Every structure is written in structure tokens, then in C-alpha cells.
């Protein structure tokens, strides 16, 4: 086995290659904008160049004169359609063509549709808008922001968690820190650009668009278009980079659907990379104040985390990572508060581990500062503060293997060789620094439906309206069926990414593997029960035995005793050619409406900190080595090691790949990624991959992922904790700690850049 396919340990599944790997690397996987569509017309967006004001006039003559132009959809043309709604399925409540008000830079002002992509682009560039401009508010510290308390503004963020008397404990603490941290604006830049293709078949609408939430979108799009959801179909077989960007539907989808209806032919609109900065969601900038008080023994007695997050004027998008940071360690007392700061910006949205990435960055950078203040090894400091129960509700953790993660990662990294003295480690002209941080992510699960069919000749089809966003969910769902039905993976086909399939929840919050596998498991077990019942019935080959003693293997029902019967023969007795089961999985604690809500595209999430019996989190520990040039101060990361425990690992290959990708992104968050906002105009400046930096291959050297075995029966029937969003939590803090160790400079504002280290 090579590094990409780690040998499975206890409670870990085989590193099967992805079932769609060949399709992907040979270019045969059709992403939504690649799906062959006849008689296509092409759409291109025109967007505003101001962030606040009104469009007073649109001059369309030049655009209309472009040869091949077919239509322009703009103000007035969406009046018969309802405005979008902001929520899980909707990116914003702004209906850009419903209203001439401009709420943000890059807001859609028209869609030009033409016979060719080039003509559409040209026409869009020739659409001239006149504006009544107002001075916009760009961000924190800009005049005109409005600050509101976040608690209760989102169903995902109900309260500011607290415990004990923070003020008293902090006042009394022997050692304390009080520091501020910040994270920058970050934009989704998947290589697959955002796109919508829409066409009508009579009164049926079909939309091809990369989506993490086909069921939610079907319902929301039908609402906007005043249609029966049964007449709307969202198709998204492959998604090239999602990470939350393709979770909520944007206003573009309905606009393209309207254009297709007006023209009576399919319309495809692929937004440019520049336009995506204003028309899609993104991670807004955050600020943090953290206070930690501890005794000389290193035990934390007081922890306060205040957060500020930018959002748009019309929509209160909440990140709210304090529910995780407030439960991370065994603090004596906890005080948290999250505020939303409204500015003239587009509505932010989910980006990989939306709450944890910024909030845990702040916490973990502070933890390292605290370890320094205490004169304590940062790993030891975490060990000392390992809790028995979480500090807010005093509930147990369903499982918590943080210290095992620290121990295994530290050993692999060689932490023992670190000289704790700042600036003490050198390699020629390079200063060497080492740092570490904790990763945490709530283990949630949601209702999910799946249909599984086993044929008498041993073929299996799994159908589930979940989404292959690159995680390998098709493969692991197939593995689950393979294991339960005793059928080799190459006899299993898995269909996903179509709202015509049994509904699955949004592929967000790292719930997919747990939710989908639990539903597939349930459907498979129903097939097993039918087969076992038939096989043991009067006159059948295994008559007289008990169900529990059977398993399915290689097309046979095998009893513990060794007796067996071919599935094919049992189906003959049953007089069926296939058994198909439709299963609806609802997690423990689900409300009576939970399944109804799944079909309505508004699934409930359970787990994390929401359950009565315990809190459920996956944990990890990351160690980073940095090198900083003595003269020029550029920062390089030659080594990174992460150890993670996340319950049952379905497939060590896909799990490692997720965690590795997360760690790489974390390095990018530490050192590269930031959208620059021109504060005068509230406009994004670096809207392309030349200036919006992410790590390239040369930036990533020695990277090691350790999968720490963990068994957790409480999380969900599949025993799986999501890990898709775990890997990039904490990484940036580990880098910041390593930079401090190398240079003695504590950088609290991301990204860490050369200029911060020059002085």
C-alpha cells in the first residue's frame, strides 16, 4: 500500500479507488456545463460596477446590435417570478432584477443571451448602466456599518454559549492573555466555474448546475417560478470543487430559467471567474477577541471568545464558531458573544468548516500564546485541559480521541526534537519553527432516503439524491452496499446528483457519509431481512435457522454454521428477479416532521452539540514546520503532519484525500488566501487566480495524514463522523505558532505575509 492508500486499521474500510476515478482522469466525467445539450443558446451576465445606489438607466442598443444576440433579460423581466429567499437553499434574498437597487459590487444587472458564447460576452460588455451612486460601507471600521447580535438570527446559531462566572475567574487568574485576531475575506475559486444550463420540456423545467443540494434547489426554484416542485428537475452528476460554494442556489438560476422559457430553447450561462466574486457566496472577514485565564499549573479557569463577522445589508448570515470553541477544552468558565456587522457587500455563505476555520484559528493561536505565557509545552498545555465533559452543558463526548491524535502526530513529526526556545532552530540562512494546533468539527447527521436494488444475478444499484462533490461519496456508499450485500464493488452502480432520486440532505456540514451510509445501510438491511426470511421459510434451503446468524457473501446467504444458499436460488423461490428497498433514515432525536422536511428540502441536522445524551465531535492534531529566510522572510512549509480520529473510516484512501486537501487549504489560509476589498468603493480588487493566491504544488512538500482508530456507536448507525471539513481547522494556527517559534513574532491577522515579518 502506498501513502495514498493507507492500510486500514481497526474500524477502517479498504482504500478502494474511487468508482469514478477513471472517468475523472480521462475527462469523461461530465460536469453540469459539459452535459451535451442540443440547440444551446449562451448567456453572459452583466454586473454592476458600484456597490451601493440605483441603476437609473440601462442602455441596451449597442448590445442589441451584436450579431447573434437573441435576448436580454433585465429589469421588469422577472416580475412574474418570486424573489429568492435567503436560507439553506438560497444564497441571498436579493432579487437582482426585481429591483434597481444595488446592494453590492458585482450585482447582476442583466443577462445577455446569444447564439454563441463570444457574442453573449460581447453584448454583456456593451450593456451600459447609469447609476445614482451612494457612498458604500466596505467592511469593519468603515463608516455606516450596523452591528447586531448574532444569537437567534440563524436556526444554526441559537445562543451565545456560556458557563460559570467568567469575569470573576478571569480577574482571579494567575496568568492571562487578552488578544485580538482576524481572518480575511476569502472567495471560492473552484476550477469548475459556476454555471447554469436550463431547458424546458413542456411545463417541465430541467436545470443542469453544480449543486450540493438538488432537493433544496428543486423546491426553492419551484417556489420562485411558482411551479409544482414535481415539474422541476436539478441535475448535477459531478461537481468540481464545492466546499459550500454550490450549497445555496444563487439568483442566476431563475434568471437563466426565465431566459430559456422566453427563447424556447436551452440556455447555458457560465459565469466568469471575476463575476463569481460578486455573484456567489464567500467567507467574509472575521474579528475575534480572546481572553484566557489560567492557574500557574496551566489549568484554564476562564475563557472568553467574542467574534465579529461581516454580512450583507439584506441578509443576516451567521458563522458563529463559539459553540465549538466554547466546548473545546475543560475551561472553568466560558463567556462568548458573536456580532454581525452589516456592510454594503454581497451575502456571505458557507466555505469549508464555516464556523470552525476562523474561530478555531483564533482560539488555537491564543492557546499557543497562553502556553508561552505559562512557559509550558503547547501539547502539554492541551493535555492538562482535556475535559471529562464539555463545559457548557456538562454532557459527555460520544468519543474524544484528541490526546491520541496529539501523541501519534507528535511522534511522527518528531516534536520531541523541538528546541522550545524562540529562534533557536536554524538551518543555514533559514529560521526553523514548529507549531501545533487542534482540529475539531461537529459530527452531525441528517435524515436521508436511498433506494437499493439487488438483482438475482448479483448486480446492485444504489440511488440517492446526494452529491459527488469530490469527496468519494459514490464510492463509500457503494462500499456500504458491498459490505452489507456481499457483492463486489464492480457489480455496484451508484446514482447521485439528480433531484429525481430519493432525497438526501444538502452535502454540507460533513454529514453526507454518515447520513447517506445510514440510509443505504437501512435499505440493504431491509433486503437482507427479506432474503433471510425467504431462505429460512418452510421448505427453503436454510429452513429452521434464525435471521441474526446469517450474512451475505459472494452471492450467497451464509449461516454461522457454514450452511449456505445462493441468493439466486432464494429469489427463485420468492419468484422475484430483484429485491428493491426504499429506505428513509431519520437520526435519533429526529422530530416527527423530520422526514417530511427532508422532502421539502429543509432537512434537520442532529448530532454535534444538539443531542441530549452527548456532544459529538471529530478531533485532530496538526503539526507544522516552517522555514523563514533570514534576509527576505518568505515563509515555506516543508513539513506538516496531521492525526485525526473520526469514528468509522469508510475508506482510508478517500478519507486521507479529504484530510490532506483540508491541510493544504489550511496552509493557504495561513499564508496565501485573501480577497482584497477596496475600502473606498467596497469592491473586490484581486478577482482572478493570478492575484487570489492559493498554494501550488511547489508549496506543499512532506505531508502526512494519520488516521487514528476510533469506535463510536453513538454518533449514527453507520458509526461515521464526518471528516470532510476537519482537515483545514486549526492548520493556520499551527502555522502561526510555528512562525512565532521561528521568529518571536506573533502574527494574529491572516494571511501571514512577508511584510509582517520584515520589521
Amino acid at each position, binding site marked *: 500500500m502506498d501513502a495514498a492508500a493507507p492500510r486500514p486499521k481497526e474500524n477502517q474500510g479498504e482504500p478502494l479507488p474511487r468508482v469514478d476515478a477513471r472517468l475523472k482522469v480521462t475527462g469523461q466525467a461530465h460536469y453540469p456545463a459539459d452535459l451535451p445539450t442540443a440547440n444551446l443558446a449562451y448567456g453572459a451576465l452583466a454586473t454592476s*460596477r458600484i456597490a451601493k445606489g440605483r441603476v437609473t438607466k440601462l442602455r441596451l442598443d449597442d448590445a442589441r446590435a451584436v450579431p447573434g444576440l437573441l435576448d436580454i433579460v433585465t429589469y421588469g423581466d422577472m416580475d412574474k417570478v418570486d424573489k429568492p429567499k435567503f436560507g439553506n437553499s438560497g444564497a441571498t434574498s436579493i432579487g437582482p432584477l426585481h429591483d434597481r437597487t444595488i446592494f453590492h459590487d458585482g450585482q447582476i444587472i442583466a443577462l445577455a443571451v446569444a447564439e454563441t458564447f*463570444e457574442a453573449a*460576452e*460581447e453584448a454583456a*460588455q456593451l450593456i451600459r448602466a447609469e447609476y445614482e451612486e451612494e457612498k458604500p460601507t466596505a467592511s469593519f471600521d468603515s463608516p455606516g456599518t450596523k452591528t447586531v447580535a448574532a444569537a437567534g438570527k440563524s436556526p444554526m446559531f441559537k445562543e451565545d454559549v456560556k458557563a460559570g462566572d467568567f469575569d470573576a475567574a478571569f480577574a482571579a487568574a494567575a496568568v492571562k492573555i487578552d488578544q485580538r485576531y482576524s481572518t480575511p475575506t476569502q472567495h471560492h475559486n473552484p476550477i469548475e466555474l459556476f454555471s447554469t444550463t436550463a431547458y424546458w420540456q413542456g411545463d417541465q423545467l430541467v436545470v443542469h448546475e453544480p449543486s450540493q443540494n438538488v432537493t433544496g434547489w428543486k423546491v426553492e426554484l419551484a417556489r420562485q417560478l411558482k411551479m409544482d416542485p414535481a415539474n422541476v428537475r436539478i441535475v448535477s452528476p459531478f461537481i468540481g470543487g464545492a466546499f459550500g460554494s454550490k450549497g445555496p442556489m444563487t439568483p442566476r438560476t431563475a434568471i437563466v430559467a426565465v431566459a430559456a422559457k422566453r427563447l424556447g430553447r436551452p440556455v447555458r450561462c457560465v459565469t466568469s471567474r*471575476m463575476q463569481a466574486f460578486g455573484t456567489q457566496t464567500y467567507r467574509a472577514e472575521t474579528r475575534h477577541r480572546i481572553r484566557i485565564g489560567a492557574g500557574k499549573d496551566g489549568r484554564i479557569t476562564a475563557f472568553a471568545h467574542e467574534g465579529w463577522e461581516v454580512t450583507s445589508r439584506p441578509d443576516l448570515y451567521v458563522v458563529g464558531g463559539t459553540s465549538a470553541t466554547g466546548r473545546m477544552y475543560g475551561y472553568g468558565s466560558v463567556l462568548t458573544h458573536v456580532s454581525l456587522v452589516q456592510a454594503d457587500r454581497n451575502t456571505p455563505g458557507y466555505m469549508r468548516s464555516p464556523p470552525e476555520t476562523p474561530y478555531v484559528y483564533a482560539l488555537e493561536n491564543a492557546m499557543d500564546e497562553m502556553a508561552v505565557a505559562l512557559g509550558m509545552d503547547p501539547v502539554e498545555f492541551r493535555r492538562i485541559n482535556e475535559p471529562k465533559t464539555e463545559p457548557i452543558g456538562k454532557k459527555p463526548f460520544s468519543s474524544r480521541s484528541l490526546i491520541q491524535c496529539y501523541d501519534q502526530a507528535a511522534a511522527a513529526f518528531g516534536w520531541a526534537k523541538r528546541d522550545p526556545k524562540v529562534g533557536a532552530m536554524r538551518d543555514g*540562512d533559514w529560521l526553523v519553527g514548529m507549531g501545533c494546533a487542534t482540529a475539531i468539527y461537529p459530527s452531525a447527521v441528517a435524515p436521508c432516503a436511498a433506494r437499493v436494488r439487488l438483482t438475482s444475478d448479483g448486480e446492485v444499484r444504489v440511488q440517492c439524491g446526494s452529491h459527488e462533490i469530490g469527496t468519494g461519496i459514490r464510492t463509500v456508499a457503494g462500499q456500504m452496499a458491498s459490505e452489507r450485500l456481499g457483492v463486489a464493488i464492480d457489480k455496484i452502480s451508484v446514482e447521485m446528483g439528480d433531484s429525481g432520486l430519493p432525497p438526501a440532505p444538502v452535502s454540507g456540514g460533513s454529514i453526507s457519509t454518515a447520513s447517506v451510509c445510514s440510509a443505504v445501510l437501512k435499505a440493504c438491511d431491509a433486503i437482507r431481512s427479506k432474503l433471510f426470511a425467504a431462505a429460512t421459510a418452510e421448505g427453503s434451503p436454510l429452513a429452521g435457522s434464525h435471521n441474526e446468524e446469517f450474512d451475505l457473501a459472494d452471492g450467497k446467504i451464509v449461516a454461522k454454521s457454514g450452511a449456505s444458499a445462493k441468493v439466486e436460488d432464494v429469489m427463485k423461490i420468492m419468484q422475484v428477479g430483484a429485491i428493491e428497498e426504499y429506505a428513509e433514515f431519520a437520526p435519533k432525536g429526529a422530530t416527527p416532521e423530520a422526514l417530511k422536511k427532508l422532502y421539502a428540502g429543509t432537512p434537520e441536522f442532529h448530532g454535534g452539540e444538539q443531542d441530549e445524551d452527548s456532544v459529538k465531535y471529530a478531533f485532530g492534531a496538526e503539526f507544522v514546520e516552517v522555514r523563514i*529566510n533570514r*534576509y*527576505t*522572510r*518568505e515563509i*515555506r512549509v516543508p513539513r506538516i503532519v496531521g492525526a485525526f480520529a473520526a469514528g468509522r473510516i469508510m475508506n482510508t484512501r478517500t478519507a486521507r484525500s479529504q484530510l490532506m486537501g483540508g491541510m493544504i487549504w489550511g496552509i493557504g489560509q495561513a*499564508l*496565501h488566501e485573501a480577497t*482584497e*476589498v*477596496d475600502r*473606498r468603493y467596497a469592491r473586490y*480588487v*484581486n*478577482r*482572478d487566480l*493570478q*492575484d487570489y*493566491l492559493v*498554494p*501550488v*504544488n*511547489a*508549496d506543499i512538500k512532506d505531508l502526512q495524514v494519520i488516521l487514528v482508530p476510533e469506535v463510536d456507536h453513538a454518533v449514527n448507525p453507520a458509526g461515521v463522523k464526518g471528516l470532510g471539513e476537519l482537515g483545514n481547522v486549526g492548520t493556520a494556527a499551527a502555522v502561526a505558532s510555528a512562525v512565532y517559534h521561528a521568529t518571536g513574532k506573533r502574527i494574529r491577522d491572516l494571511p501571514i*505575509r*512577508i*511584510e509582517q515579518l*520584515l*520589521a
Partner: protein
Amino acid sequence: MRPFVYEQPTDISTAVAIASRFATDDDQPTRANAQFIAGGTNLADYMKLGVAEPNHLLDLNQLKEAALRQIQVTDGGIRFGALVRMGEAADHAEVNRRYPVIADSLRLAASGQIRNMASLAGNVLQRTRCEYFRETSWQCNKRVPGSGCAAMDGFNRQHAVLGVSDACIATYHGDFAQALIALDAVVHAEGGHGARKIPFAKLHRQPRDTPHVETDLAAEEIITAIEVPAIPWARRSLYLKIRDRESYAFALASAAVALDLDGETVREARIALGGVATVPWRAGAAEEALQGKKLDEASAGAAADAAFAGAHPRQHNAFKIELGKRTLVRALLETRDMKV
């Protein structure tokens, strides 16, 4: 994207003749009706963005003159044909042996794919990546003369501190040009008035109050070759490029250095600075400061101070002065320590 006529002239004089037909005397190459395209990695990008708007595109890749695609090593130095690709020049054994600074500057630029597409003449003529220039909704004196400069008080971390004017502070981002200007390269061009040679240092123009005038070339003039003189001691030379990530990024600061040493004493130094200036930047004051001196951290530091004596920072790029100095110091010491 606007429609345009695409032509593939097959010899230099025809290409010049076609271009002349569309050009007026004071036409800038970057604003002319007819423009040349080589690798297209810069021009096609700017056409898509609506920054460049030629109505006629003259593709140079079918020109039949063989020398355009050749690297010729002569007693007098090395002559690079204008259409030689960056990747080819970077890998050329004699270039690596004689002028490490040239090979480095090409190897550290862009990505493998771009280096395989991009020509050497196109490379030296690449236009700035100023974010406000790249996007037509901003005010930009270089793109629309007299419209103002959005970068001046905007987000200008990338921008230049040397050779700036009140009209424009856009950085010249190319790497290869720094090696060329340090080595006193000469540009061969052919135009409506015949062939001529241009000292590389005269090719680019500082922005002053006409930032849209970027080079000394006439609209119909084609660069045919770049010649680098023989400098035996240039084997002790290197290009150091400092950037936010390890590859595929433009320089925040860079230094092209070649040294003629007598023991540790500098007989002659050649220094150019990238990432910090509006044009390829020869640091003459730094060269003078080093002449006849023992090269150590102190003398290198003094040279670096001299190089940045006239620097003008704006809000977000002040760090480039300190970074530029340190880059030069490091480059000088690393060049001194080269085993040649």
C-alpha cells in the same frame, strides 16, 4: 469579446507592411488597430478582458525567417530569436552555462505551460498586471489616458516604488527583462523605417505623465531578436525572486546580479531590480557603490540603500523598500558565494 480579423503573415516585411497600413505615426503598439500576437499569453488575456482592443491581429508564428526561432551562440554573445519560447531558452545548455541569471529568470517565471507558449519578445513586452488596469470598470491612466489612477490610493501592495509618477505606479512584472537590462542586451527591431537596434535600457518608458506610452517601439515595429553581449564573468550571476508562494507568482521583489570579482573585491557589478519598479530597472547607483569594494553584508547593505534612495511608497507597498533591499543583499552574497 469583440470580433477581430486574424491574419497570419508569412514574412517579416509583409507583417510590417500590414501593420503600417493600420498605424498612424504616433500610434502606440498597445493601442493600434493592428497588433502582433506571439504566444498570446498576455495579449489574448487582455483582449478577453476588454483591455486590449485590436481590430486586426497579426499572428507572428507563421513568419518564415528561421532566425526568429533560433538561439545562436557566437563569439559576440548569444542572440535569441524573438519567437523562441521561454521554456526553450531556460533549458538551453549554453544559456545556463554562460548566463545563469538569464536561465534563472526564465525558469522562475510563470508556469511550465505558459513558458512553453510564451515567446521571448512577448515576454519582454508583457504589460503590467495592475489589478485596476486589468479590469475596465476602474479608472486607469494607462488604459484610458487622463481618466485617473484607481491604484494610487487603492489596494496597491503589488505596485512599484521606483520610477513611479503621479499618473501611474504600475509595476513592470517581467523577470527576463531584469537579466537583459543588467547584461546590456540589445533589441533588434524591424519597422516601416527599416531595421534598427535599441539598447534594452531604452526599450521601456517610465510612466511620467503618459503611462499609456509603454515602449520605444512604433506600432508597426516587430522585435526580431534580442542580443546579449559576451561577458565571460557573467557565469557568476543569478536571479533571486521573492514571492508569496513558491512558484507561479510574480515577484514582490527580485534581483538580477552578475559579479566580476577579484577575490572578494568587486571589479564590476551588474544589478537590476524586479517587482519594485515601473520598468525593467538597472540599479546604477548600487553598482557604483560596490565598485572596488570588498563584498560583504555591510557593503551590500550600502549598495541596497543606494538602490532605493529615490523610492516612493504608497499605503500598501512601503514594505517593498525594505524587502527590495534585503533581496538585493541576499542576491549579492549568494552570487559572491557561487562556485563557478
